[in-house]
């Protein structure tokens, strides 16, 4: 906020370039006194300075606004699933970068599935979405499901997409058809096992290829409307109420409003639409 030489032209005519600093009160005394004299005798400059003061005071009184909820959620998947036409190329590039990270972390190994409950081959559920509950619903058998439009919320996050690549993930297949209590069972048993820490190699069921695994991760992330605090540690190719589904298990770190928990999402393999959700505090 210093006055530079370039703004001290010796006050010829109407010294417009000095007025910003004059109004801000950052001019040196000698320049300010000279300007005071000019303004006292120049109606135009006096009028402008009065307007500028008024504007400055008005702007200083504007409140800082809260960011509307969801503004920065869904960064990646908004782009990936509904790319604005002019953004398609750019998104491809951005996602390629993310995919490179994912590929770099694709190691081979085997880990068994987390335990689940018995099959519940009831009639296929209609599209279900959820509003994840604020904190862990540790009660058994009640997944946090509700019904609303699957496309209602912006899907996933940039961070979510890439977080999937940052930790170890076990990829398995199961013949089970889970229901809500089955998902809750997955969450509970994972929470009881003290979810493995991130950083180790991912493990792949022998039947999972890298490309398939990546596509499945993206599908779950898109359908689950991931937020950035969640990190996938297991992905199961199974069914939810007989609908072919990917079931993603995530750990969510403790944060300001919630303790650490495990969350489980079921997302239809076809169309990646959200099916169901369960969570369990660690």
């Amino acid at each position: 906020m210093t006055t530079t030489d370039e703004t001290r032209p010796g006050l010829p005519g109407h010294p417009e370039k000095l007025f910003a600093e004059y109004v801000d009160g950052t001019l040196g005394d000698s320049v300010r006194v000279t300007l005071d004299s000019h303004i006292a005798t120049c109606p135009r400059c006096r009028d402008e300075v009065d307007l500028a003061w008024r504007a400055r005071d008005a702007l200083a009184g504007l409140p800082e606004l809260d960011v509307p909820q969801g503004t920065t959620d869904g960064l990646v998947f908004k782009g990936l699933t509904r790319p604005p036409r002019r953004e398609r190329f750019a998104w491809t590039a951005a996602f390629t970068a993310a995919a490179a990270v994912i590929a770099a972390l694709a190691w081979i190994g085997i880990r068994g599935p987390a335990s689940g409950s018995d099959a519940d081959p009831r009639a296929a559920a209609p599209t279900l979405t959820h509003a994840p509950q604020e904190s862990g619903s540790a009660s058994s058998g009640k997944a946090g499901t509700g019904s609303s439009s699957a496309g209602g919320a912006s899907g996933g996050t940039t961070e979510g997409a890439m977080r999937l690549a940052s930790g170890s993930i076990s990829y398995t297949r199961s013949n089970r058809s889970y229901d809500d209590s089955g998902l809750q069972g997955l969450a509970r048993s994972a929470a009881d096992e003290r979810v493995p820490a991130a950083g180790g190699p991912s493990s792949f069921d022998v039947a999972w290829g890298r490309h398939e695994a990546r596509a499945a991760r993206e599908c779950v992330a898109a359908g689950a409307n991931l937020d950035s605090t969640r990190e996938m540690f297991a992905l199961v190719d199974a069914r939810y109420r007989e609908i072919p589904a990917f079931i993603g298990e995530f750990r969510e770190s403790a944060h300001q409003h919630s303790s650490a928990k495990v969350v489980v999402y079921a997302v239809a393999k076809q169309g990646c639409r959200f099916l169901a959700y369960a969570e369990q505090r660690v």
Partner: protein
Amino acid sequence: VASEPSDAELVRAYLSGSPAAFTTLVRRHERRTYNLAYRMLAREEDAKDATQEAFVSALRKLSSYRGDAAFTTWLHRVTVNVCYDALRKRRREDVVDQPEPAEGSGPSAPDHADASAVSVDVQRALARVPEEFRAALVLHDVQDLGYEEVAEILGIPVGTVKSRLHRGRVALGRALSGEHAGVRPPSEGSTQG
């Protein structure tokens, strides 16, 4: 208690393969970014889109961020450019949608839960200030950035920032007074310092 990583450290962490670092950057800067976009665009939905777009754009360009400017300065620059794009797009759409400008078709009323009637009036008046002046006003008078940083964000000389500030303030003052005329468009050939 461990200290928070700096922006530069987070950028390096992201570029070194830690995706979560970008999440932290977003959380850290979304408030200022959103407020800058909202004051520039005056519509909540547009500001939300611009905020997203700014972070998407930043993510794409992060590898080209050299660290020679503060991350905040760099992100502000990205955001202002996104806002300029949005305003250009809005103008094009207005031309297509409204070939005959309606009487009094100024900027629509801000739709944010922007509390007081006074701040609504100010925001509405601000939207009538030519956008290049508006950017200087928002960065300096609302976001409280210094002349030099505003100059760096807008890519113009410091003298031009001061000139735009003054002209913008006068324009805003007139708009607040209900004067619609008298706003000179940006023409700064003689104000480059």
